[in-house]
């Protein structure tokens, strides 16, 4: 399996008034084409920051201090996402890597209809494809009344120009002149048609109607489908799902999870699934990375994690899953303050097996079995 994403030694720090928050400290992670990798951890363990660094969208005062993120594009180039300029990044965001957010209601702009929002993503990244289609299908033959002929001929010119060189001066001028710039309506209409098509792929029963609705008119599950539709509109290679079902109720959650699984096959995307719900992980993922306080402490196939967890933190996490007839358990202590993280292994203050070395030396990732990595002194 080829790797499409490779994060090497990622370090992210937030420079706040209280001090430097060491949010992510040397994360290594790679995603293989077609798999679903689960990223588990408590709140504040750096899952979301990891995903935002992949898009180079770490919000200030955060800063990527060190590391490399290699990404294999659609055209086969291998790029370091942290070294790219803003323009190239804009091309990659939404087109090659896209993201589904936790709160579906908040991720949609309340002022535009669902169709308009999906169409925006389509126009941003698939304009060329649409122009070609329009030229082939609608503007192939120019005939009709003289005035209409003139109009169509103008549109044909505009779309040809749009296809060849969207930044050309003449097009820029024309798009600023009222009435003349109406040519873009055809593009918008086409994009909206595509949007309806994608909504249908989301197993929405009545996509035409939903496309004309505003976010507040939809239920939570529907909104999340719309958000997923927006993310998949441009057929991305990598889909980052940041707790997409946390705020939905269980039945809807099951629907959405099924949907993501099916779409993954249909669109042939790789998924980075971020969650704190181990049940969802068991359901969805091929491999799991467990994160604690900005470090990955264990990485293995999903079955291995549940059958034979190695890292004390993973063990504790699995103990915490509530089951009937079992006493409720929690991990002792608190998530460390990341301004002054504990030295050595960051989990040692809470670890029942802590040794002397744990508070002094940061453990390295070791491969205990094939494909099962753990960062703990017990195994090194």
């Amino acid at each position, binding site marked *: 399996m080829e790797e499409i994403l490779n994060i090497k030694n990622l370090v992210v720090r937030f420079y706040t008034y209280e001090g430097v928050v060491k949010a992510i400290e040397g994360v290594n992670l790679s995603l293989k084409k077609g798999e679903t990798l689960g990223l588990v951890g408590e709140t504040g363990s750096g899952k979301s920051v990891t995903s935002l660094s992949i*898009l180079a*969208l770490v919000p*200030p005062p955060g800063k990527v201090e060190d590391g490399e993120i290699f990404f294999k594009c659609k055209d086969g180039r291998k790029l370091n996402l942290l070294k790219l300029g*803003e323009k190239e990044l*804009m*091309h*990659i*965001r*939404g*087109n090659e890597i*896209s*993201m589904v*957010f*936790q*709160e579906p209601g*908040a*991720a*949609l*702009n*309340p*002022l535009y*209809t669902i169709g308009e929002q999906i169409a*925006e*993503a389509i126009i*941003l*990244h698939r304009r060329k494809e649409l122009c070609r289609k329009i030229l082939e299908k609608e503007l192939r033959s120019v005939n009709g009344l003289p005035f209409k002929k003139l109009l169509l001929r103008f549109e044909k010119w505009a779309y040809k120009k749009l296809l060849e060189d969207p930044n050309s001066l003449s097009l820029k001028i024309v798009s600023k002149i009222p009435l003349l710039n109406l040519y873009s309506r055809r593009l918008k*209409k086409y994009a909206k048609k595509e949007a309806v098509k994608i909504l249908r792929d989301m197993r929405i029963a009545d996509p035409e109607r939903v496309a*004309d*609705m*505003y*976010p*507040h008119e939809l239920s939570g599950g529907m909104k999340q489908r719309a*958000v997923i539709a*927006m993310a998949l509109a441009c057929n991305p290679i990598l889909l980052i799902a940041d707790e997409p079902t946390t705020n939905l109720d269980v039945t809807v959650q099951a629907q959405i999870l099924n949907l993501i699984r099916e779409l993954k096959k249909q669109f042939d995307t790789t998924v980075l699934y971020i969650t704190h719900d181990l049940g969802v992980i068991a359901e969805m993922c091929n491999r799991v990375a467990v994160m604690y306080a900005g470090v990955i402490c264990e990485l293995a196939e999903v079955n291995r994690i549940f059958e034979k967890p190695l890292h004390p933190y993973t063990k504790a996490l699995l103990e915490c899953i509530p089951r009937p007839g079992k006493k409720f358990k929690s991990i002792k202590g608190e998530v460390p303050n990341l301004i002054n993280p504990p030295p050595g292994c960051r989990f040692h203050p809470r670890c029942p097996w802590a040794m002397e070395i744990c508070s002094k030396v940061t453990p390295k990732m070791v491969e205990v079995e094939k494909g099962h990595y753990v960062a703990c002194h017990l195994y090194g």
Partner: protein
Amino acid sequence: MVLRVRFESFKKEAGPTIRELKFIVKRIRKSPLSIVGIIIILTFVAIAILAPILAPPPEGWYDPYMIPRDGFSVTPRPPSPEHLFGTAEGQYDIYYGCIWGTRTAFRVGLIVVGCTVLMGIAIGSISGYYGGKIDEIFMRLTDVIYAFPGIVLVMVLVVILGPSLESVMMAIILVGWPTYARLVRGEVLRIKQEDFVEAAKAMGCSDFRVIVRHVLPNAIFPLLAVATLDMGSIVLTVAAFSFLGLGAPIGYADWGQMIALSRNWIIGTPANPYEYWYTFIIPGIFIFTFVLGWGLLGDAFRDILDPMLRRR
């Protein structure tokens, strides 16, 4: 047949927009006061448009905004069939002045509010969205302007620019934009935290696109409400400056200037203190209803705003 198909497709395309418009109309209809406001403003719009018909300037008159005079006598004359609202000091026709003054009021209000709003939006959104040093510079600039009493600062600027209606407008714009800039900045600061902005960035939108398409449309509603209220109050301010003799020249069709003309006649005569009531009451009524109308319209905007808030 073709037309019907066109109409159907148009109806389908505009469906969501029409639905929203219907909702807005329903909201407005629930509060009678905002209807009154809309009616008042529409009446004023009609007066302004129909001014050449309602009060035709005399043949060959050099500037329709200068009030024609009927003689040069100092004492005002009461309403008569010839001069519906009477004449002011120097025999300026009050009716003519009030009608053409509506145009002045709209011109002043629209230009001043338009410019302050545009400046406020541009500076406020850049400052709120990018933050950091740019924000610091602009916000300290607004602090400097805020540090002076507004009216005094406007007056100083008018004196520097030379007294005229244009310089009063310019001075009010220069002093007025910080209010809007702060308002927009606050809203932008709030909205840029929202997930949909992050989502737009993750979708590959440029900063410009994020601001114009996603942030500003959500930030603009409180601004609209304030701007409508300001439409009225700015006309009041300009009237005050005209009254002080810093704004429109004598004889110009401007409500404030007309009240300035009546300055010597407000007290009336010892026998009848209200003898010259028409010189200040009539232009005063025009100013009052104009300001009131915009105030009520501001309320209507707040009603329209409510469903937008409901959406969040």
